[in-house]
């Protein structure tokens, strides 16, 4: 096997990691602040992809950039409605209730997508500037996948800045520790939770919109990403953004290695990685023991 093949595989897995990271970061952010696993998070990703594909398909010309700007915002609106209508009612409920409720949303959003967009996959071509390939010494690599990787890194840096350097970020971290104390010091925690959920929805919608040039958009997108994103979030440590980045990298490389050397085992590699990590670090790589 030539180094060129390995390099391409590695770069490809980095771009996979970038989109996985965006979805898992939202999942883990929402879990960290509100202690709720949102199974419908994958559906938000899927809607990001569908809405982006619809915008691209609705006009001729280079509409991809409009789609990339608008689809995540549309998903933010959807996510906000979901938070206000349902999620805030189940934050204090049992985890089982939360899982049932969000699973219900997943099914409803899936069927609605089937109604709107049908069963046949939509396809989106890369924006013109990124449609080519970059030639390196021993191999060539699609420009779009490099763009996706770079966007993932930027999103990660933006999230770090938000959490470490802004008062909104301090509030999010404070709410993870002691939401009651935050409330008596004058923060509207209900509103904060809506904002956190909307940020998570934005990340899912952005991830979904970004994946459209690489993957056919159909109603199976949501359920496939939620499993991978959940594994990533658990490996990294639920609640840790840096952990989500690390977990996304590990899972993507594991999947790539599986596909390259043990193709028959590829679907299993995800779970093998999770089992190995949790056997060594039960709270995930960067997770902390739950209170």
């Amino acid at each position, binding site marked *: 096997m030539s180094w060129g093949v390995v390099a391409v595989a590695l770069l490809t897995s980095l771009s996979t990691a970038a989109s996985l990271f965006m979805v898992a970061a939202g999942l883990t952010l929402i879990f960290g602040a509100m202690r709720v696993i949102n199974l419908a998070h994958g559906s938000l990703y899927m809607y990001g992809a569908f809405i982006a594909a619809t915008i691209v398909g609705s006009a001729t010309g280079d509409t991809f950039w409009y789609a990339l700007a608008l689809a995540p915002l549309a998903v933010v609106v959807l996510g906000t409605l979901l938070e206000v209508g349902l999620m805030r009612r189940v934050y204090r409920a049992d985890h089982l209730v939360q899982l049932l409720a969000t699973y219900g949303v997943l099914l409803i959003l899936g069927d609605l997508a089937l109604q709107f967009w049908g069963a046949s996959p939509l396809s989106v071509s890369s924006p013109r500037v990124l449609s080519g390939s970059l030639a390196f010494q021993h191999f060539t690599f699609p420009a779009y996948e490099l763009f996706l990787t770079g966007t993932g890194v930027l999103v990660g840096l933006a999230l770090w800045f938000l959490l470490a350097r802004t*008062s909104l970020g*301090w*509030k999010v*971290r*404070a709410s*993870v*520790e*002691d939401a*009651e*104390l*935050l*409330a*008596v*010091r*004058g*923060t*509207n*925690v*209900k509103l904060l939770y809506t904002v956190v959920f909307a940020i998570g929805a934005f990340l899912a919608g952005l991830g979904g919109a970004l994946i459209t040039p690489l993957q056919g958009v159909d109603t199976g997108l949501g359920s496939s990403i939620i499993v991978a994103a959940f594994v990533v979030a658990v490996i990294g440590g639920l609640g840790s953004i840096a952990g989500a980045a690390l977990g996304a990298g590990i899972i993507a490389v594991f999947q790539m290695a599986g596909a390259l050397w043990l193709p028959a085992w590829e679907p299993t590699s995800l779970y093998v990685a999770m089992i190995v990590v949790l056997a060594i670090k039960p709270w995930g790589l960067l997770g902390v023991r739950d209170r």
Partner: protein
Amino acid sequence: MGATTGDPGEGLAVLDLHAYYGLSHVLQGVSLEVGVGETVALLGRNGAGKTTTMRAVMGLMPVRSGRVRLFGQDVTGRRPDQLQRSGVAFVPSGRRVFGSLTVLQNLELAARAGRRRSTRWTLDRVELLFPALPALRGRRAAFLSGGEQQMVKLACALLGEPRLLLLDEPTEGLAPTVVQEMGGWLAALRAEGLGMLLAEQNAVFALRLAQRCYVLEKGVIRAEQAADELLRSETGLRYLGVARNP
């Protein structure tokens, strides 16, 4: 309904408050008052309902019936952040600081989230009251000593510009020297004209600061008395489980 503009001369008035934890009836009609600038002790044994009273007043647990009036306005059922903004700061017991944030981040968060119009308590002024605070600015709050955490807790409460402090067990778990320090800080705040409701197991500590006191038992106010009177009463102190200093 009373006037919505409110009577600035009125502080906190709790009227016949009832609250439940599940099926257990923990507040069975608590009524008490704290005038503007007045210091009032809320005494009682463990489980009498002192903390619950404060949490119910602060909107941290549902109230079944009864009213809470604050500075002449009915605030029953308001959210904690709304109550904070109308001028009441709840200082919970224990090491309640945001441990993953630095001291300065704790303080800035309190100042930004809770700031009302006036700016009586700026960071500089708070640091004047707690001279040890500036040196701790960059430290993560999780790594502070018990006394330092109490200081940060009080400083955060002040940065929200309160007119009334609800202090839940401020001396709980503190070393005797720190208890003494806490007494000094609270006396300074009293001198500033801040109203205080002081829930304490340490009755002597609270009675030395307070003008009046209430004794809570099984969710009901059993007695209301002037603080110095109770401090001189052998039977009263014995009831509160305090042996008088020889």
